[in-house]
């Protein structure tokens, strides 16, 4: 059954999928840094959604939807309209391509991100392990 994107249930499912993905664990074994995935309003979505993921050495230690942006101070922030997130999760747009075209924005230590493209790719692959619904 499809899970509503960016819901608390979806974030938990994503965490579980990340932790069950050996390819991610291998690719991200040197990764240190938590992040916000920020879903910006578009279409029927009227308010920003902040998804928090704490990623550490190939493991997702925590994941939740955050209502107060200032509740966490993650090392990385990725933001895009919901339609772009959908294109990425439906593999219609590559995440790297989305960054290079300015559709997906990010803030954080780019040097670390530049070193670990496989980890980014496997992170997305983990989120494809279950069905996602976009109701907006």
């Amino acid at each position, binding site marked *: 059954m499809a899970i509503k994107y960016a819901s608390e249930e979806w974030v938990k499912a994503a965490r579980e999928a990340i932790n069950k993905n050996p390819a991610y664990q291998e690719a991200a074994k040197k990764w240190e840094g938590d992040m916000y995935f920020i879903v910006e309003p578009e279409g029927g979505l009227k308010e920003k959604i902040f998804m928090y993921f704490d990623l550490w050495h190939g493991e997702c230690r925590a994941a939740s939807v955050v209502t107060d942006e200032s509740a966490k101070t993650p090392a990385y922030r990725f933001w895009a309209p919901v339609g772009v997130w959908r294109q990425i999760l439906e593999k219609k747009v590559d995440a*790297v*391509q989305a960054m*290079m*075209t*300015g559709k997906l924005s*990010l803030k954080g*230590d*780019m*040097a670390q*991100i*530049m*070193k*670990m*493209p*496989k980890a*980014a790719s496997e992170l997305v692959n983990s989120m494809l392990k279950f069905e996602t619904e976009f109701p907006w």
Partner: protein
Amino acid sequence: MFGYMGKILKVDLSKSKISEEDIQEDACKMFLGGSGLATKYLFDEVPKGADPLGPDNALIFMSGPLTGTESPSAGRYSVVSKSPLTGFWGEANSGGNWGVHLKGSGVDGIIFKGISPEPVYLVIDEGKAEIRDAKNIWGKGVAETNRLIKEELGEEFQVACIGIGGEKLVRYACIINDLHRAAGRCGMGTVMGSKRLKAIAVRGEKAIELANKEVFTEISKTNYDLVNESMLKITLETYGTSMATDLVNVRGGFPTRNWQTGVFPDIEKISGITFGNSELLVDRKHCFACPISCGRVSVVKSGPYACKGEGPEYETIGAFGAMCAIESIEAITLAHNLCDDYGLDVVSAGSSVAFAMECYEKGVLTKSDTDGLELKFGDPDVMIQLVHKIAKREGIGDLLAEGTKRMSEKLGKGTERFAMHVKGLEMPAYDPRAAKMCGLAFATANRGGDHITAYIEGPTFMDIPFLCVENSKIEDLLVENPAEAKVLKDLEDSLTVFDAMGTCKFMGMALATEDWVDMIANCVGWKFDVSDFRKAGERIYNLARAFSVREGLTRADDSLPKRLLEEPMPEGAAKGHKVEKLDEMLDAYYGFRGWDKKTGEPTPEKLRELGLGAIIAKM
């Protein structure tokens, strides 16, 4: 000497005489090689005030200590001369394989002086050099020149040559090796043409002795693997240098219609991603020892722009695409390949066409000046015709062949306001109104309007850091922050070392300074740490500046076209922005450099600190 072949060739073309000189270890320790060592020779060999196209100017080809080794992307060589575009220090750099074979032939570099009475080319075969008659290849394009030389000498010879553009003294002619790799900027091909030197063919497989070969090999492999796993490889290999077109356009800094705006509305028709996903891209290609195949092998199968070759690169799409408002990626690809065969710098050529189009739009040029052509923005056929005319200096092409600075001086009528060059060198496709630090970078670059000197578009438009400096972060693209002038200075110094080592500057994004000093130290065998790396870069940068100061450069030359200083960006993410604090930024920059704020000259104290005290009296 480890890392070097130990020999420099000196060729007096006026007397048809070749001599050899041992490479000096002291000079190598100070300037490494490549453009660093070549700049030292330029300062020593070229008299003050020499005509760039006269016999006293020197044209210097130089490899670096890492050229031809197992270091990642170590296939590069530099060409240094007094530029016929700027009248100051000129430099161009190229990859491919030619530099490796130059070193394999047994020489580190070649210094040409004089002017040959007849067209000639130089052959270096396993260390033996010979000047040959070039009558049968004079007048030929780059591809045909390569074919004829290889037919005469053998397929193993690698050729660097000029095309018809260099022969005709188009001021922005370049030198092409491996058929499509260009030592592109500053008119180095023009200087070569002025000396009636058509080509240099090299062959040889002499081994490069390394100080600690086993350690060097191990470090190089580790570094190669690091680059191979980086996002830099994924992005550059997938989309080429033109990957940046979309992002720069989104940020409102993709110069369009000769910089009248920074947003090209039809970017999806010409972007790097569009090209990368099209059938025009048939293969990817890498330079010697490079993990990244960023080169594009392209074919336009049919139609008026049918061609087969390489490119287009980001700068071609910028200059012949958005700047000229051309929506046809096929026409842009053909323009790129024509420039390769004529031996023209795509940045200066495309910019000159765009400038002429705006002059036509404003009525400064009319059909009576343009051989009947309507130089309208967006017309790909006209753009292609102009490329042919420039290379042959035919009709209106004779004017465009002079570059935008001289074109505006001849045309007058306020055209200097939108002649988009710095010091005479046309600017690359990044509008400083949308990333202010680019303005300071273009204004101060030793070559003139140039992006490669500091690669400032990496940390600005693309938000990609350089690991070869301690800090490359620019906080806000639209804010002119004098404190961040230090980032520019550090990038200039550090990336200067890449041109001296013989490696690609892209690698500065993927590997840290510590990685490079390990390779250099184990290559050459003398102490070389991070401090030495930074000092070498600063020393070479100051020497190049000192050369230009000697030739008349002042603070007033460190400026930008009026359009960028006075006309706000009309639309897009940078709407309303212009470069407003250039003077304040220059003060800060000179401060970080230890240069005189009134004159922009390196101070005697700074030169002495860098071990350049001997040149003070010669400036």
